[in-house]
């Protein structure tokens, strides 16, 4: 579940909740601690953030002036990423994002260049910045949960499992021909996908969390990485199509 960044009533950017919230909080801290001027970035209300692009541009210009007037490296470092992101927000809102005659210290230049290289923020509607993490989770969910569950049910229905339930299923389906078993397979697959969909949908509502560990050691609430986990399952480039 992401945030909606809006200007003039229209959504122009949907960052993940973590990055959107960080950006808003940075704005508020810099407003209070340094400029005493409004940043043009509203509070988060019902997952929406309203951006006044004129105010934001003035705010960024003032920050750059403060940094440059004192050659202030600490502030350039601490606020550099925020300034780069704010410039990108202005660009995405199709507002004036140029600051002619203003020098950009090295940390801010590096941050701006990093975002310019990023496909995430280059398109009109940005791709999810956590795409790789989501891919890893989707692949894990498909190869460790969905596919083994389908295979197990396939064997169960055909009497290839020797447990109590396996014997019961074997008895139930012993007179079914291949076409009928194929229909049972399809129904089983549908049931498994429905469970996965409901599971992901409920995780999206934050009633419980699915913590996922990708390549590092840290567990991440996977719902924070997606604008809608349940929606990642289907579609032509969804997890089922790609990884199952």
């Amino acid at each position: 579940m992401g945030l909606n960044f809006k200007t003039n009533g229209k959504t122009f950017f949907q960052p993940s909740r973590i990055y959107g919230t960080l950006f808003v909080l940075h704005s508020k801290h810099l407003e209070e601690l340094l400029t005493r001027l409004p940043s043009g970035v509203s509070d988060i209300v019902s997952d929406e953030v309203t951006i006044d692009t004129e105010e934001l541009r003035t705010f960024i210009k003032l920050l750059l002036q403060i940094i440059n007037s004192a050659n202030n490296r600490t502030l350039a470092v601490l606020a550099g990423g925020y300034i780069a992101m704010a410039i990108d927000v202005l660009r995405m809102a199709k507002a004036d994002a140029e600051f002619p005659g203003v020098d950009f210290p090295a940390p801010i230049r590096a941050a701006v260049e990093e975002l310019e290289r990023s496909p995430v923020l280059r398109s009109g509607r940005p791709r999810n910045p956590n795409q790789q993490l989501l891919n890893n989770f989707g692949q894990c969910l498909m190869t460790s949960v969905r596919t083994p569950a389908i295979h197990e049910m396939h064997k169960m229905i055909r009497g290839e499992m020797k447990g109590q339930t396996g014997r019961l299923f074997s008895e139930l389906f012993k007179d079914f021909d291949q076409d009928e078993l194929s229909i049972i397979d399809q129904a089983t697959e549908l049931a498994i996908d429905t469970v996965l969909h409901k599971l992901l949908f409920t995780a999206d509502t934050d009633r419980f969390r699915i913590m996922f560990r990708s390549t590092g050691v840290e567990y991440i609430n996977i719902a924070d990485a997606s604008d809608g986990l349940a929606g990642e399952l289907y579609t032509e480039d969804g997890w089922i199509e790609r990884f199952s």
Partner: protein
Amino acid sequence: MALIFKVGGNTISEQVRPFGLLFVRQSKDVERLFEFSSGVGDIVSDEVTIDTEILWSFIARLLQIIDGSNNRTMATLLGGYIAMAINLLRLAGAKSEFPGIEIASPIRVALAELEGSPNLRPPRPKRSGL
């Protein structure tokens, strides 16, 4: 008025108050959003106590998340904060290396910037007056 950063009772850095406050607030923001402790204490009488072991773990986790997901937005938004934290670890003489983790470009540039910054060097010891 400055904000004093301390480790084990020793002053490691004196920051201009707004910048020190910005760092502390960023620590708390990231703590809350990622749900793990930063090791950066609350401000008490213009002093902030840092637990360098916890701060190192905190930064290692952030770097791993950035490295693992190639997350440029996060590298950009948190790069300055991470660089400042690493600089504080260095000033404290604590572990500040992160072997096996690639440090993203904005963080490397920010670190280089801080290395040349006079106001981030350790405070000079006060003379005894004799």
